[in-house]
């Protein structure tokens, strides 16, 4: 099969075109937002948030709301609870995250199990269903993506100060608390947007893996974000095609490609890769 045909053949199907567009959008957006998560150590928070939105998704389905709306409400409630518990008790924040995340996820599964003839498939929520992306989903992803990227561009220098040196943010009278919530809110939005593509269980990989790989080979944040987005798009598109031809679930395939790229960079990155350093140390 020639290369062009390899690329165009799946696009005969409209659902594959929508899946490709969704993969590209999510592949750009997740790693950009994920860069802040990697730098701020928010990986666990992001994972917890993704799981905690399950009850929101199920309730949205029961009430006939759009899935994204329910997910967003649940994400905000979870984020608020985590902050509230860690501030009003002697517990560490990661403990509060653990409690809320597990509890909310259990609530979601319990709710799901009460539905007799539910069409919302647990597997689709957990692992995504990029082939089922509707045109409306695509518009929602696109709209939210523009908002999130717009905020990052507009507040780039403030967010940079907040992530690098929170104390400077306070000294400079930046609205540090509002910026922090904004960052968490953008993580929540991104998780919600990515649900359809990779699902609750794997969205963390989209956020963190490309950003982590990019961090190992870049020296400035804009370069890190750009490379992370490149890795994200490449991984998602490659993953989508592999899943089409090999008949594997698409979300996990995308994540596996991203993980493989991470592994390559971890081992072979110039100067900072494991193999490079070993060779340099030996020679």
């Amino acid at each position, binding site marked *: 099969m020639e290369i062009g045909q390899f690329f165009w053949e799946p696009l005969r199907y409209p659902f594959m075109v929508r899946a490709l567009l969704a993969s590209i959008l999510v592949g750009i957006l997740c790693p950009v937002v994920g860069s802040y998560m990697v730098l701020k150590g928010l990986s666990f928070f992001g994972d917890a948030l993704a799981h905690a939105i399950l009850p929101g998704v199920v309730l949205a389905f029961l009430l006939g709301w759009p899935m994204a709306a329910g997910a967003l409400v649940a994400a905000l409630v979870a984020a608020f609870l985590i902050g509230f518990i860690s501030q009003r008790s002697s517990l560490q924040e990661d403990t509060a995250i653990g409690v809320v995340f597990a509890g909310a996820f259990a609530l979601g599964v319990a709710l799901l199990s009460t539905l007799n003839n539910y069409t919302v498939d647990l597997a689709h929520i957990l692992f995504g269903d990029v082939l089922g992306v509707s045109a409306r989903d695509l518009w929602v992803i696109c709209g939210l993506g523009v908002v999130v990227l717009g905020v990052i561009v507009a507040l780039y220098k403030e967010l940079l*100060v907040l992530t690098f*040196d929170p104390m400077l943010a306070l000294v*400079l*009278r930046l609205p540090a608390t509002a910026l922090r919530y904004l960052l968490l809110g953008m993580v929540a939005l991104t998780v919600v947007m990515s649900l359809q593509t990779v699902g609750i269980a794997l969205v963390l990989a989209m956020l963190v893996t490309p950003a982590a790989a990019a961090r190992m080979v*870049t*020296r400035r*944040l804009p*370069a890190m974000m750009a490379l992370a987005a490149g890795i994200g798009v490449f991984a998602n598109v490659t993953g989508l095609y592999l899943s089409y031809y090999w008949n594997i679930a698409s979300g996990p395939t995308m994540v596996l490609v991203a993980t493989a790229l991470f592994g390559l960079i971890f081992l072979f990155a110039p100067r900072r890769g494991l193999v490079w350093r070993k060779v340099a140390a030996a020679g």
Partner: protein
Amino acid sequence: MLAGLKKSSPHDLTLPAVALEGVTVRYEQTVALEQVTLRLRRGDCVAVVGPNGAGKSTLFHAIAGVVRPQEGEVRIYGSQPGRHICVGYVPQRKGVDLLFPVTVADVVMMGRVGQMGFLRWPARRDREAVRVALDEVGMGEYAGRQIGELSGGQLQRVFLARALAQEAELLLMDEPLTGLDLPSQEVILGLISRIQQHGVTVLVASHDLNQAGEQFPLILLLNRRVIAFGPPEQVLTAANLLSAYGSHIHVVQSGTEALLLADSCCSGGSALQQLSASTATQPVMQETLAEMRPPR
């Protein structure tokens, strides 16, 4: 000319640069600062010394307006610290994420964020301020380096440049000399005194009583309260040091020199660490000794 002074100071310079009146700060049950009253004039250069937990960081936070005291008030040139972006601060090296993907120029540009205002990107004057500030501290050729590639002294110089780019009129430095070799310490001390001579008020938290006594014209001895404030020979007396460090320290008067022995055997050694922080390369026994100048 220092980069930080291009803009004429907007403050009433006849007022004290820093004025604390009966400032008390509590965290939950613990009192971090108690009834601290302090006045600094423009251009004063003060070493803040005291044992661990003496409230040095809290004092800085209160002056910067980051924590609000429960009692008393803080004034910077007569107005509340919350209104100022002219307070610069230099963090401890250990508090900096050295692997963060920012270059030296990026870090210095952060000092301009307050001047630029929301939704603005750096303009030519901001880039110029960054360049001038980096040249001022002799780090111009390192502008493109990632911060993890710098030595400890170079990193401190970059943060000083950030304060200059910020046009800071009050500079708070948290242990800037800890862990630096002697030549680097000299460079930083030289820069501090140059900055101070241009009317910037400087407070430096220090663990090293020796260095504070030798290098700084004013010492603030702190242990939640102000134990003493003034020139070294008035502050670093046996009585004051005992009062600040309590039973962790023994002061021996021998002829013209007071000898200070820090004792760590019974109580966790916090005072010992205080005194030996900058003398880590010396043998252990010497670490417990810090020679003091005699009170005059």
